[in-house]
Structure formats: C-alpha cells, structure tokens
C-alpha cells in the first residue's frame, strides 16, 4: 500500500526510511487514520523529519493523491548547459562572436549578464526551431565543444585579452608572484600531525578519580583526600574549507587534506568543503565545485562549537572580495560581497582560523590578505603557524 508514494518521496530526495514507512502502516492498521487529511498529517509527521522537506512532501502528496504533475527542472538545466558552453567558448572570443552572429568588437561591449541573456535567448530560439538538431546547440556530441566531459565550473573565462573589460575577464590571479616553495612539505607531515594532536578538548576538573582518591586517602591515614580529574569531553567537530582553485593552491590542497585525514580519528567529525579564492553564497563538497553545493547560510545548522579552518592564499583582486557580484564565475551572482559571507562564517563559528601558505612577510603586500586577516585569525601554513592555529582553536572563549 502506498509503496509508490514512498518511492516517489525517495526519488525527489526526501530521506524516508523503511522503518518510518512500516510505522506509518502500523498507524494505518491501528485505525488511527480515517481520512486523506489524517493521512497527510500523520504521514508527514512519521515520514518527514525536517521542515526543509515539507514543501517537497506537499508536492509529492499532491502528485500522488490529486494527480498534480511533478515539476521538471527544465529552465535550470537549460541555463546550466548554456553556461558551460559559454564558458568554454569564451576562451575563444572569435568563435563566440561567430556562433552568436555578432561582431567581436560588439561582443566586447556587452556585460557578462547581457551576454548571458543574449546567449540564452539564442539558445531557446534554436531549440524551438530545430528541436535539438542544431549544429551548435547540441548537448550530445554535435556541439563544437561538448558541455560535459570537462572540468565543470573549473573552466574560467579567461582567454579574452585583459583590456577588454566588458566581458567579465576572469583573469588568472594577479598576485601569483610569491614563492612557489611550500612552507609546509610532505616530509614535515609527521611533525605537523604532532601539532594537530593538541586538538583534543579538555573538560573542567570535576570528576572524582575513585582509585586515586582511595590511594591518597589511605596514604593520608584515613583523612579523606578527594582527587579530581579532567572530565572527558566530546571530541571536536572540524570543518575544513580549502581553496582548490588555481594552480597556486595546488601544492597544498592534497597536503592539507592528507594531514587532516590522518588526524581524522581524533575528531568526532571532519567535513571538507571547497571554494575558489573566496567564499560567496556556496561551499562545495566536491572538489570540482559543481555537483554538491552547500549554501553558506546553511552553516548555521552546524554546531557552533565546530572548528572552522580555512586554507587559502587569500590573494585575489580586491573586487572579488569587496564587490557585490565579485565572483569570477558567471553563475555565481551572490548579490552581496564575499567579505560579508566571511564575516558571517566568523560569527557563526567563534573558533575559526585561516591557514595561509603565503609566507608571512609577504602578507602586507596583498590587500585582500589584510582584509581577511581582520576577519579571521590568520596563521601561515608552517609548522609554527599550525601550532599557533591549534592553540588558538583550542582556546576556551
């Protein structure tokens, strides 16, 4: 009974468990549910465990019991395809101008938003006219560049020469002129791990050590001597956010990950997220930064005692940090400057720090490092810095 209701719920992403489903049946067999209304409320309270899924549940319920059609994410998919095509093409403005049928010089005058809009319109026209058979819209294999197969989101709009300001020229980072030599290297891993070992919480000294108390009392000729010891506390939860965009971070990404993964057993929970340069509205769970976004606002759902560690060079164009739509990606229109997002994170997690592979003496040459330094306590990614960061993260307040 209602099995397909159950499976539809699962399909749209409501995490329903078989146990919960059986429980619903128990409720049904007990005669507790006598109408569709009853069923709606009961099934929701038994099956759905978070208000975030209430809307999805409503949709499925309406679909199953009232025959309402489930919405397909057409629009979104279309613009997704368009974006990846566009990003690829932007590497070659000549070709883009050709396929869009406009002059290359005119192309330069369009803002990224205008360009995107124009492109989408063309795309829709084309799909309507040719039903996917078009030479240049094909999503399968007919397009000059496939929309799948390459590093999604990792492709940057870069090829257009630097003086063309109209297209969002997502140039390679402008502050790459620091030493390539990583301060922390693979060979120092063992040492670094030792530093991380200090990330163990200690409770107040309020637990009676019975054995020691007896021993000391006897030693004291029967005069009671109570020995207290530190209470064990719940192990730490750690969120690691890594800047894995661009080659300048590359030597460190793996290193930092390995480091924290080795230390994983001493944490209660270790989550790794990725971002590029700075954090806007989303963090990503997958290194490609495409499939599994986590809205930054959702971070409030995590325990605020979680240690939030960011690893990144904090070097970027000031506009990326301070601008309203600073992201170098087309799709990321945050509407508020990244610096706000960073402040939000720092406020949400009082125990946070930023590890920076850039040598400390170069920090003052980069504007954005200074700004971020004011938001997060920043430490160099060296043995020394790691030790200081751990001490900072373990502070009581």
């Amino acid at each position: 009974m209602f099995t397909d209701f159950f499976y539809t719920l699962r399909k749209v992403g409501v995490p329903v468990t078989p146990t919960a489903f059986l429980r619903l049946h128990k409720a049904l067999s007990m005669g507790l549910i006598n109408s569709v209304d009853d069923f709606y409320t009961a099934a929701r309270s038994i099956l759905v465990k978070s208000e975030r899924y209430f809307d999805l549940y409503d949709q499925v319920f309406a679909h199953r019991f009232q025959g309402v059609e489930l919405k397909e994410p057409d629009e979104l998919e279309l613009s997704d395809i368009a974006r990846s095509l566009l990003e690829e093409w932007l590497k070659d403005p000549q070709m883009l101008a050709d396929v869009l049928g406009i002059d290359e010089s005119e192309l330069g005058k369009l803002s990224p938003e205008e360009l995107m809009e124009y492109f989408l319109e063309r795309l829709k026209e084309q799909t309507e006219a040719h039903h996917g058979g078009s030479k240049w819209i094909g999503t399968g294999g007919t397009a000059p560049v496939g929309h799948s197969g390459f590093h999604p989101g990792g492709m940057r709009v870069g090829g257009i020469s630097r003086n063309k300001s109209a297209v969002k020229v997502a140039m390679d980072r402008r502050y790459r002129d620091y030493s390539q030599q990583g301060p922390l290297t693979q060979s120092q891993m063992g040492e670094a791990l030792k530093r991380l070992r200090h990330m163990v919480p200690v409770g107040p000294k309020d637990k009676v050590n019975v054995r020691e108390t007896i021993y000391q009392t006897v030693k004291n000729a029967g005069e009671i001597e109570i020995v207290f010891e530190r209470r064990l506390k719940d192990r730490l939860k750690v969120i690691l956010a890594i800047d894995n965009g661009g080659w300048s971070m590359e030597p460190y990404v793996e290193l930092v990950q390995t480091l924290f993964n080795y230390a994983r057993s001493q944490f209660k929970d270790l989550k790794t997220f990725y971002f590029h340069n700075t954090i806007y509205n989303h963090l990503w769970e997958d290194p490609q930064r495409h499939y599994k976004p986590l809205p930054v606002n959702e971070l409030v759902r995590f325990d605020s005692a979680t240690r939030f560690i960011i690893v990144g060079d904090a070097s970027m164009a000031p506009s990326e940090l301070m601008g309203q739509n600073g992201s170098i990606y087309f799709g990321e229109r945050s509407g508020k400057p990244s610096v706000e997002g960073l402040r939000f994170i720092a406020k949400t997690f009082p125990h946070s720090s930023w590890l920076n592979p850039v040598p400390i003496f170069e920090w003052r040459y980069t504007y954005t490092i200074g700004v971020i330094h004011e938001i997060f306590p920043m430490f160099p990614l060296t043995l020394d810095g790691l030790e200081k960061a751990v001490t900072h993260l373990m502070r009581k307040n």
Partner: protein
Amino acid sequence: MNDGNQLKKFAGASQYVLDDELAKIVNITMALEMPLLLKGEPGTGKTMLAHAIAEALDMRLIVLNVKSSLKLIDSLYQYDTLTRLNDSRFGDSQRDVSNIEEYIRMGKIGQAFVSDERVVLLIDEIDKADTDFQDDMLDILDQMHFDIIEIDKTVKAKHRPVVIITSNAKKDLSDPFLGRCNFHHIAFPEPDMMKEIVRVHFPDIDKELLDSAVHTLYRLREIKNIEKKPATRELINWIRALKSDPDFKIKDLIKGHVPYLGVLFKKSPDLFIAQKAVGHFRM
C-alpha cells in the same frame, strides 16, 4: 480505540490554542508510543504543548532541561559517591552505607520510568546536547529500560511516558535520532490564530487593542536584519505591559507609536534597528 486509558484524546487546554493538525499528530504519536520531536521558532509554544498535554490529560509533567554539559547517565540516575564516602567516614546518617541502592537517585528520565502512573516527559532543547547524548537517549526511550551498573539492576518503565522533545529550529539533529521519533514543525501562527492565542491569555482584552497589537507585531516582524524576531511570548508580555500602563492609548499604536520596544526585541542590535524602523512607521 477502546483502550480508554491509552488513547485518551488530546484536544487542547485552558492556556493553549491547538490547531487541528497538531492535535492529530499528538494523538497519533501517543497511540504509536513514539517520542514527538517539535521544532519551530522560539516562542511558538513548543514547550507549552507539553504543559498543555499534561494538563489536559491530567498527567504529571517531568521536565528535563537539556544543558550542553548534561550527560546521559545524569538524566537516568546518579550514584552519590561523595555522600556515601562521607557517611562511611562519619557514620552519623540514617542511611545504610553498605547498601549502594540508598545512594542512587533517579534523574528525570529515571523518574519518568519509575513513576506509578503514565507521565508526560518533556525533554527541552535537545539540540543543546552532544549528538552522542541524543542518540543514546533515544535508545533508552526506545527500549524503555536502562541498567544501573553499580547495583546491577535494570530499571524498566512501568508506563511508557508520553515523550515530547523540543529543538531549536536552527540545528540539524542526527539521522538515527530523527529516525526514532515523529516530527512536527510548528509554523509561526497566522494573525487570526495569534489573536485567538492572545484571547486565551487575556479573555477580556479590548478588540481594538488586540487588532492593533497583533497588526503591529506582524509589521515589526517584517523589519529586516533582525536576529531574534518577536514571537508569541514577546507579544503576550508586551500586551501585559501596554495594559498596565495607564498613559497608553490605543490611538498611539494605530498612529505608529510603539512603546516598550525593549519587551519585543531582546537583543540590543535588534532593538536599535527596530527603533530606527519604527521611526519610519510614523510617516
């Protein structure tokens, strides 16, 4: 359905306005003998629900206020070693030092288990505790028994208590925890519902005051960038303040003059923002 005692229906209480949906959920949860997890904005009456159930069904209410430092064992029972040590040394108490059981005291969950009649157990603000605490506690509530290791005794629940668990809406609880309870999210009440709630607390309230106070509340809730929006609790306190002020006139409220903002906004940045926003109301 004839199992009278077990399936007493809950239909609201003198100080609690219940919507149909919630009533159904409470009754189903009680019949299925599962804990009910309530989420929702602060001040939407999560805790009050437990009080209301206890009152309506004439059961005793046992409240376990969860603190971050609370350990599961403390909510089950406590073995008072220090008193025993003291007694054994001075020997001037009535207790039998060799009988450990005399030094075992029941915690809140333990009390709910050993109670001679069915009780309502309210576990308030569960999200404050560690996830380990949450999971372990649900195990205990699932099986309805726990062991006292010091005296090797199993405490079984005489009657399954009605378990109400509340949680702040912000944080996620673990999956195993969610799997073991029924869930309901109490939405912020609609203005009409809100008026009814206020009327329960102030049966003789002036209609004009009620309308304009509720209207003002919903307007205030629309102010942006507020961390803690005023909710039912604040509204009721606020109306109480308005009623006790002899100088207050309803006309002022309609004109956009809002006194006692401090009752509605508890955080100083919020209050500051609200004061500025209320300034615009007047225009």
